[in-house]
Every structure is written in C-alpha cells, then in structure tokens.
C-alpha cells in the first residue's frame, strides 16, 4: 500500500506549526530562569502568536482541496474556513490572555491554548470517525486544563471538575455511538457510512447510535437539556479560557457536527413531520435551548452566568443553522458561529480586563461593570459593539448571522420555519438581558472611579474583534461569498 504521507504532512501544516509552537513555548520556559512571570508570559505569548500566525499564513494555503489521505481528511471550503476561524479566535483569546493573565505557569497556559487549537483545527478537517473523536478529545482535554488553570480559586477547580466529568461522560456516549455506527456500516469513514446507511435504511440500532451521538454533541455545544455544566464553567474558569470554550470550541464543534450529520448521516435525517431520524431531535434540542437560555438569562445577576445562558440560547440558534444547512449549505451556519465567536471572545475579554483591574471576590458580578464608560471609554465602546452584536442589532455581524440562518430555515419551510419564527420572537426577550449589561456599563454611575488601564495586547485584541464585527456586518459577503 502506498500511503501518501507527504500529502498528509502538507495538509497538516497548521497542526504541525501549532504543536511545534506549543513545544517551543514549553522548551523556552523550561530552564530555571530568573525572569518575572510577566516576562515569561510575554515571551510565551509572543511565541504562541507566532505559531498561530504561521499556521494561518503558511499552513492554510497548503494542500489540494477535496478528500485526502484516503478520505481521512477533507480540505473543502468549510474545513479551511473553520480552520482560519478557530486560528483567528484563538489569536484573540491569546491576546486577551497575554494582557490580563496573572496566573502562575504562563508558558503552560499558552501551550495549552495551542494544543486546544490543534484539536480545533483537526476537528475542522476530520472526515473519519476515529480522527474526529481524537481531535475532539485533544481539544476537550486541553480545555479541561484551561478551565482549572487558576489554582488560587476553588471556583476554577470546580469548573474544571464539572467540565471534565460531564465532558468525559459525553465522550463515552460519543464513542459508543460511533462504535455502533461502525458496527452497522462496517466503516469509520463518513462517505462510506453515508452510502451504507442509504442502502440499509433505518434500524433500531441506528436510532440508539443517533441518540448517543446527539446527546454527546448536546453536551459539547451546551444545548438544553445538556447545558448544566455551562454556567458553572463560564463563571469559574479564567476569563480567557471561558472565551476559548465559548468561541473557537463552538465553531469547531459545530463544523464537525455539521459534517457528521448532513454528509455522513444525511440518509438518517428523517424529516420534521414525523419520520424518525436525527432532524426532529435536533429541532427539539434547538427549541429547548432557545427557550431555556433566553428565559434563564433574564434572571442572572452575574455577567458570566448571563453570557453562559446567552450561549445556550445561541446554541439553539446554531443548531437551527445546522438543520438549515441541509437546504442552503454551511454558509449561514459558519457565518453565525464565527461572528458569534468574535463577539463572545470580545465580551469575555472585556470582563477579563475589568476583573484584572478590580479586587473583586465574586467574579463576574454585573455590578463590577458599573460606570465602565467613565473608567475606560475603550472597554465600554468595545463592550457596546460585542453585546449589541450578540443581541443581533444591525449593522453588526450578529444581526446578519441571525438573518441568514433564519432566512435559510424559513426557506427550508415546515417546522424549521416555525423554529425560526420562535427564535425571532425570543430575540426580543434577549434584548432585555443584553441591555442590562449595557445599562451597567454605560448608564449606571461608577462604584469606584479609578480608571482601568487596558493592557496593549488586550486592547489590540478587543479592537480587532470589534472592528471585525463591524466590517463583517457591513460586508457579510466576505464570509458568505466563500460558500457560494
């Protein structure tokens, strides 16, 4: 057998860069040195940025489009765009980290971010169940560590433990579902699976496999009713880790989910009007997430928990995008997920800077944002953009994301259309809690008047995210056009 390893190496350039970068970060920091943690963080972050940029610039252009290495990988537009997206989001998260982190072991922190990103980029290209699972676990294990990185606070450990336990269980579900699929079809390659499924038709075992897979992805995506870990993790994890969990991880996960469901299991989709399959289940999860997320967010007094419930609501809309992708391709879903990621990274970035400046005990208290406009006009302005984009106010990218996903769902018709109408109705509910954040930042008087000094890297990352949200909102064809 002539295995094209050269081709594989070429296609995996981004991952090679990332892993090499992570190892370099660890190696540089390894010798016993007398540098301050601040310096070590800066050196590590600089190496990390270098790795991410190299992966993006040098790595992404490589490789033939289409399936590679016997169908293990696929370098189609969705894969490349998702890779670029997660690299960009990781870069922003790293920028925030470099500016705000006061954690011990800065090199390990940066290395873990790079390892997690490696997992994300692999998830984006995986075309085969085994690689998909490995990529997902690489990313997840890194994220568990990142969630618990703040060893000085028990909440961080709690977040990591909860995330790890729930994530571990869901990984077991996923693996079980995958093994059933393998048993049913005799293959772990998505293309082969779809051919086999189309021939064999539905079977009870397939239903079990689908349920396992959907439960697992429900956990990963923080969709109701599998969302219970999300508020605790978003609250307890260090802010940059939460940013990564909420943004890049979601984008990569949804790309993988999309690839698994439509090209792989499209034959078992069923339909929304009764025939068994995964489509009705995803629709139900989507509706439950939107309802629960939006209404639970109303009652939150903690901005991190609020963002967690908003993330659950957005997960519902993203799942609607997964459904609609069967009709209109991955464009709308990718646009929504990528721009949502930008806004979330930004919002958590602002929180990270505010928390660093304050000496607050309860992280994420909504009141800590009070008077932000007086303390730092830059942060307040950025937060304004991020939160309004999350709320879906034009001309920001969040609006266009909602618009394209909902119009795709309505064009699909039937219950997908009803879900879109539900989502639009709930967006009015959502505006209330988003305005609560902005009310604190822009309307309420400051509790403490000390100005917040925004570290340069964090400022750069936040400004870049805000600018991207505005530009992509005004010129959405830049992303949507990729998928035409």
């Amino acid at each position, binding site marked *: 057998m002539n295995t094209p390893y050269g081709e594989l190496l070429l296609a995996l350039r981004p991952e090679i860069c990332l892993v090499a970068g992570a190892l370099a970060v660890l190696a540089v920091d390894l010798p016993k040195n007398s540098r301050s943690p601040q310096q070590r963080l800066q050196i590590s972050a600089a190496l990390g940025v270098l790795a991410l940029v190299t992966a993006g610039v040098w790595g992404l252009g490589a490789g033939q489009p289409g399936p590679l290495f016997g169908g293990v990988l696929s370098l189609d537009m969705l894969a490349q765009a998702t890779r670029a997206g997660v690299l960009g989001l990781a870069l922003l998260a790293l920028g925030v980290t470099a500016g705000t982190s006061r954690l011990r072991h800065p090199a390990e922190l940066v290395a873990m971010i790079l390892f997690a990103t490696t997992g994300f980029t692999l998830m984006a290209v995986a075309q085969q169940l085994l690689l998909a699972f490995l990529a997902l676990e690489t990313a997840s294990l890194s994220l568990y560590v990142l969630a618990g990185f703040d060893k000085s606070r028990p909440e961080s450990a709690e977040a990591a433990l909860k995330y790890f336990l729930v994530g571990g269980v869901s990984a077991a579900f996923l693996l079980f579902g995958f093994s059933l699929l393998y048993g049913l079809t005799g293959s772990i390659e998505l293309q082969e699976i779809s051919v086999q499924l189309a021939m064999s038709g539905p079977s009870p075992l397939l239903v079990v496999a689908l349920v396992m897979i959907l439960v697992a992805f429900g956990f990963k995506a923080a969709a109701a009713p599998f969302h219970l870990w999300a508020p605790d993790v978003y609250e307890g994890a260090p802010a940059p880790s939460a940013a990564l969990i909420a943004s890049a991880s979601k984008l990569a996960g949804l790309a993988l989910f999309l690839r698994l469901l439509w090209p792989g299991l499209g034959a078992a989709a069923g339909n929304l009007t009764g025939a068994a399959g995964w489509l009705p289940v995803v629709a139900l999860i989507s509706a439950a997430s939107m309802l629960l997320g939006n209404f639970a967010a109303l009652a939150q007094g903690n901005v991190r928990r609020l963002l967690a419930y908003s993330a659950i609501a957005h997960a519902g809309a993203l799942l609607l995008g997964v459904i609609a992708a069967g009709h209109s391709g991955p*464009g709308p879903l990718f646009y929504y997920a990528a721009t949502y990621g930008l806004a979330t990274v930004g919002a958590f970035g602002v929180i990270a800077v505010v928390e660093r400046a304050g000496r607050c005990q309860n992280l994420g208290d909504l009141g800590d944002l009070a008077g932000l*406009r007086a303390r730092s*006009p830059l942060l307040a302005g950025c937060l304004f953009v991020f939160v*309004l984009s999350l709320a879906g*106010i*034009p*001309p920001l990218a969040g*609006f*266009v994301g909602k*618009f*394209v996903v*909902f*119009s795709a769902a*309505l*064009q699909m*018709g039937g219950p997908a*259309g009803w879900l*879109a*109408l539900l989502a*639009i*109705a709930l*967006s*009015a509910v959502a*505006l*209330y809690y988003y*305005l609560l954040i*902005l*009310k604190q930042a*822009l*309307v309420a008087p400051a509790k403490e008047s000390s100005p917040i000094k925004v570290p340069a890297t964090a400022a750069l990352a936040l400004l870049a995210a805000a600018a991207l949200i505005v530009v992509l909102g005004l010129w*959405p*064809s830049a992303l*949507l*056009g990729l998928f*035409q």
Partner: protein
Amino acid sequence: MNLLPWTIYVSFAGAFLALVVGARSATAARWVALATAVAGATLTFLAAREFVPGSSLQTLVDVPWIRELGVNYHLAVDGISLTLLVLTGLAATAGILFSWNIEERPGEFFALFLALIGGVYGVFLSADVFVLFVFYEIAIVPKYFLIAIWGSTNREYGAMKLVLYSFAGSALVLAGMLWAYAAGGAHGFGLAELSAAAVHIPHGTQLAIFALVFLGFAVLAGLFPFHTWAPTGHVAAPTAASMLLAGVVMKLGAYGCLRVAMPLFPEAFAYWQPVIAWLALAGILYAGFIALVQEDFKFVIGYSSVSHMGFVLLGLAAATPLALAGAVLQMFSHGVIAGLLFAVVGRMVYERTHTRRLAELRAMPLHRLLPFAAVVFVVAGLASLGLPGFSGFPAELSILIGAWQAKPLWAAVAALGIVVAGAFTLRVIQVSFFGSAGAHSAPPADSHPLPPITLAEKAGALLLLGATVYVGLKPDVLLDWIVPALQSPAFQAVIKGGHP
C-alpha cells in the same frame, strides 16, 4: 436629488464627530450637532426644490450589497418620503436647539441623537426592506440610552419598556419579511421584488404575514392597545428625545405600515382593514379620555400624541386617496406640533419650575412668568386641535372626509375624538398657564422669577411654529408631493383593495 443620501452620511459623521469633540468641550459638541442637523435640513430643502413630483419612487442609489441574499443598497424617494424627510430635518434642528442646555455627557448625548436621526433619514429613504430594517433598528437602540441616561421620572423603566416594545415590534416585522421572502420565493428584498413575489403566497399565509408586519410597525406608531410604551417613554425621556419620539420616531411606524405592509399585501390589508380602523378609533378615544384626567403635564401631551397618531392610523385604514394623503399630512403636522408641545412642557416649563404636576402649575401665574412659553403653547395647542390656519386642519379634515368616504360610522366616531381632543387641550392650556389668572393680580410672594427663555429655545419654537403655520396656510406645498405619489401602482392596489 442626489443630495438626499448625504443626509444619512452627514448625520452619522456628525454623530461621530460630536462624540469625539464632546469629550473635551460641551460647546463644541453642541455646535457640531447643530451644524449637522442644519446641514441635514438644508439638504432636504435643496432636494425638495429640485423635486419633480411623480408617481414612482425615484432611485437615488442602487448598488448590490449582500449578493448572497439579493440585498441591494437601494435608496429612493417619492413625495411621501420627501415630506417626512423635511419633517426629520426640522425636528432634528429644533431638538438640538431645545437640548442646548445639556451639561451631562454632552458628546454622547448628541452622538446618540444624531445617530437616531441618521437612522430615521435612512428609513425614509430605503427602497429595500432589508436596508429599511437596518436603519429602523439603528433608530431604535439610541432611544434606550437617551432616555435611561438623560431622562427623568422613572427613566430606566420607561426606557426599557419603550425599547422592548419597539424591538418586539421590529421582531414581528423581521419575522414577517423573512417569511414573505421565503414563502414567495423572492430573490431579494427590494420593495418591487417582494411585492412581485408576494403574489405567489397563499391567501391565508398572506393574511398572517401582513398581520405580523403591520402590527410590528404599528406598535411604534402607537396602535391601541400596544401604545402604552409611548406615554411612559415620553414622560421619562429628556425633552429633545420626547420631541424626536413623538415627532419622527412614531412616524417610522406609520411609514412602515404605509410603505411596506400595505402595498406588499393589498388583499390582506382589505381583510384586516376594519380591525385596524376600529383599533385606531379606540386609540383616538381612549387616549383622549385618559389625557383628559391626567395630573402630569407631560402625560397629557404623551396621551394626546397617541390620540393624534390614531388619526394617522385611521387615515391609513380608510385607504381612500384623500385619507391616505391626509394621513401623510397628519404625520408631518403632528411631528411638528408634538415637538412644540413637548418642548414647552419639558424644556420651557419643567426645567424652570421643576414640576409637571398640573395642580402645582395652576398655582403659578405662568402666563406672566413665561409669556413666550404661554403664547407658544396656546398656539401649538390650537394647532393640535386642528384649527384652520394650522397644519392640523387640512390633515385631520382630509382624514375625516376620507374616512367618511370609506365608512361614515368611522368618521362619526373620529369626530367625537376631535371633541375630546378639544376638551383635553383647552383644559391643559387653562390649568397650566392660566390657572390663577383671575385670582391674583400680583405674583405670589414666594415665586421666584424664573430664568428667561433662551435664544435657542425661541429659535426652535419659531422654526416649528413657522412650519405648522406655513403648511396650514398652504397645504398644497406638501400635497403636491404626496398626491402624485399615491398614484403609483403599489398604492393604487392598496386603494383598490380597500374599496372593492
């Protein structure tokens, strides 16, 4: 004509500039804001001079924006939009003049104010529903901050309520327009394109979509029973914001009904016509009666706004050529007059006496302390009643006659509404300004002389007064624009739909 799109860009640029210079100097921010508003108004006047009335939307800009959705950045104007653009320019200029005394965070105030104005110009110029919706939402969001930061009584509640109502309305519009797009198989959101596609939608679905879109817009126009955001919002808002709210923002809703909902679905409009008419009538009477018993000066004006906007909605519902022309004229007229009334109550009286309670105002001889304010209020009140010589007269008369042509009973009930309007207006004039006129010949000993009316206030008041008198004496200025626009196939379909 090609000047008109610049109203939008100038407003946004002015907003940005006001934000930047406002951080250092309040005076600079004021002058930037005034210059921007005057520039916008001047652009509309210049365009109006060149305007050739016609029956179609005259395209100003039409370039592809989002190819994937078939969205074009399409701006166009006809006589109806031009009328409202002129109103926007006037209201914006007057609003800036009446907020000359804003000291708290002036840069942000004027930036939000001008952003709102830019959104309003954009809505009136859009010929693509997507573009219209984008501008519509841009106009909604600043209202929250304008009210929550610079407002008074119960401001955070009022601001949140107002914005949530508006946003819920716009969510209905969004749902309806996406539904129409999908169900009709349209390839874009242009008004012409959508109405061509709407023909293919089954009748039952059309009824539902029309209801969503019309109701969504009508919430912002103060349609009963979804009007409750308006009085609380107006009362909480700072003067300039309530002037804009009543003056132009409520018109956005009515304009959306007229421009989008009705022409896209004329058959569905015919089905819902009686419902809309009766809700409009209920609003006219209900808000009028409430205004009659209010003890807060600003609440009276707030409810009177809802009542007068009821006439606009009635004109739309009656849908005869006369009624529609009257409705557009009433939008202009109410925009100017409501701006004046709020200016007197909020800026001239409240900021000097620090009370809006009619019982307390009654004890002050305000007509002697603030003679200018008294004159302006009396004149504006009479204009609001629809006295001949003011813009309200031709507007409400056209609506009444139009409603009579459609259904005499509607006109009869609406006429009752005019009587009620007369009652609450005269009551509030008497109680607020002439309360103790006969009782004391000299001001009470404890009354301090109030600060005199400033030049900016006088200029703003005269600007709006001039507009209402000019249009009252010469309504043809506007009607010559409006009536030809109603000849377009889209509106003819509405008129035909309303009167089979």
